[in-house]
């Protein structure tokens, strides 16, 4: 079965010829009309629409947005803050960049609607430091919106005022984790906070209630405010509503970003029909389906079990290609949809070497607060790099796994899980390759691609 056509909602204008990122162009395409209409509604009604929509966060964890908003402490009398998570640094993920650079007003409109719904007077867009150009574009767009009274005091003559400022990070991945982000925005090291008690909804920025949402999530909010929560549930699957943007990279003919209603394409359709299949003369070997920490899938393996379709329980027996690309299906087979970053590896890749690359990332990015994460990620990097560039020993694979197994559940933030899953899943799925690496290495072509 070939893939259904793309349906671009969030990315409607991305790469559209003639579409520019200035206010005039956005207004010409109906910009800020949804915001105007939203201002005529009671804020609670907007929150209810988002709850009804079933929208799940697109930053990685897939937490229901309406539920998150429902947890905000509104009785404390403290101001409520909203932070746009524009840190986009999960390897394999590259969608928020395009929204901010090509359609910044879509994000600003979504942000103001979300602020209005939650009685937020001050929002910050936390953008990663390397995106200096993106920060400039956003600042210019906010200035345009302010000059037109879409942002700032008494928006559109109402009694509602809201400011947005752009705040730049400085090259640390952990700033994407919401409590690390908050610490960073407070001017400190981005050391994540312990939950409980520091749930952002209660004790967030400056110990005030705070909403942290991903860039893409807030664009969905704008769309939901436009069409209604009910209509949003008609797109995608019952438990993963709305559109999904896939970022495909690595060994396919046409890497890039593609938007589909969630769950309507399978991995096989995405990689073969949409992305043009493997490179000439190659076959697919492995794919990481939701950012680099998502557990790897091995082509040729099968997933079996029972799943709910409507009200019935039915058996499924899927190969990698058959898995529908939604949060639940990917969760069911032991991995995750995460941030939508799909990283593809073909048969030219040695999995030990690919893992060594990933381990180097996590070791570099651990914030260092928790011993299991700081030391464990470093050891995994050292062992796997030594396997590639120094002596590889038959017992290394088991050693790697034992280090990985001692991290999750023993750390302050989910980075502990994120850094151990690649080693655990690579070892589980490609045990043969790890156990035999010390031997295989002797015959691998010396001029093969360097991965670490």
């Amino acid at each position, binding site marked *: 079965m070939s893939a259904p056509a793309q349906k671009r909602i969030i990315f409607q204008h991305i790469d559209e010829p003639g579409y520019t990122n200035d206010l005039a162009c956005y207004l010409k395409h109906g910009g800020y009309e949804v915001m105007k209409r939203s201002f005529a509604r009671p804020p609670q009604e907007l929150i209810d629409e988002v709850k009804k929509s079933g929208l799940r966060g697109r930053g990685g964890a897939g937490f229901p947005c309406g539920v998150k908003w429902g947890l905000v402490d509104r009785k404390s009398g403290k101001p409520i803050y909203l932070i746009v998570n524009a840190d*986009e*640094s*999960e*390897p*394999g*993920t*590259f969608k*928020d*960049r395009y929204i901010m650079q090509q359609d910044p007003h879509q994000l600003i409109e979504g942000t103001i609607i979300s602020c209005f719904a939650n009685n937020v007077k*001050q929002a910050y867009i936390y953008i*990663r*430091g*390397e*995106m*200096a*150009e993106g920060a400039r574009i956003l600042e210019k767009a906010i200035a345009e919106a302010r000059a037109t009274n879409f942002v700032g005091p008494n928006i559109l003559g109402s009694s509602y005022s809201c400011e947005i*400022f752009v*705040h*730049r*990070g*400085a*090259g*640390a*991945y952990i700033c994407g984790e919401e409590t690390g982000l908050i610490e*960073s*925005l*407070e*001017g*400190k*090291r*981005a050391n994540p906070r312990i939950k409980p008690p520091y749930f952002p909804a209660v004790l967030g920025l*400056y110990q005030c209630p705070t909403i942290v949402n991903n860039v893409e999530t807030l664009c969905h909010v704008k769309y939901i405010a436009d069409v209604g929560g009910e209509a949003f549930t008609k797109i995608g699957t019952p438990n993963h509503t709305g559109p999904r943007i896939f*970022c*495909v*990279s*690595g*060994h396919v003919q046409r*890497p*890039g*970003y593609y938007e589909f209603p969630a769950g309507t394409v399978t991995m096989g359709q995405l990689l073969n029909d949409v992305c043009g299949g493997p490179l000439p003369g190659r076959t697919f070997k492995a794919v990481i389906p939701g950012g*680099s920490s998502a557990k790897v899938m091995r082509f040729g393996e099968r997933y079996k079990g029972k799943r709910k379709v409507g009200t019935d329980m039915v058996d499924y027996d899927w190969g990698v290609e058959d898995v529908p690309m939604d949060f639940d299906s990917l969760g069911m087979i032991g991995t995750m949809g995460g941030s939508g*970053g799909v*990283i593809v*590896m073909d048969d030219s*890749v040695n999995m030990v070497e*690919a893992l060594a*690359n*990933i381990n*180097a*990332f996590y070791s*570099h*990015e651990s*914030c260092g607060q928790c011993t299991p994460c700081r030391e464990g990620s470093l050891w995994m990097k050292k062992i796997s790099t030594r396997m590639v560039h120094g002596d590889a020993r038959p017992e290394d694979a088991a050693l790697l796994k034992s280090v990985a197994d001692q991290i999750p559940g023993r750390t302050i933030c989910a980075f502990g899980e994120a850094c151990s899953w690649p080693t655990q899943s690579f070892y589980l799925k490609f045990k043969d390759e790890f156990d035999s690496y010390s031997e295989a290495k002797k015959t691998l072509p010396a001029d093969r*691609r*360097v*991965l*670490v």
Partner: protein
Amino acid sequence: MNLKPETLKRIDEVITHYPVKRSATLPLLHLVQEDAGYISDEAIAWIAKKLELELINVLEVVTFYPMFKRKPIGRRHIKVCRTLSCALVGGYKTCETFEKEFLTHAGPTEVSPDGEVTVEFVECLASCGTAPVVLIDDVLHEKVDCAKAKQLAAQIKAEAAARK
């Protein structure tokens, strides 16, 4: 600190964005680094005073975030992505090409012998679909294979020559 009037103006403006002055630490570090090229001891003291903080509050931030440099780096800053999607399509070769072109080693504060560039291997730049990618100063370059890396290097060299 000998900062440009424009920088000082932007510093005073950005502090107003936050109800708590300390939040302006990262923005100030960015502004000072853009102006002075790196974060000196003097800069740390100046920022601490400006934001009514202890020296250590600023120093611990500078040492945590890879983008802040404690000493001067090359005139141009070449950041090559090291992470998986880029590596899968030749990111390591791209980095090596820049190292060879400028007779330098990749490193956070390594400077090429001519003082022209710092080549740094950095983690995922969020453009994995157009890998391998390279950020030169603030400009992103996509699909930078060896040939394109050589072209970019030649351009940097030409711009350096034109300045002399």
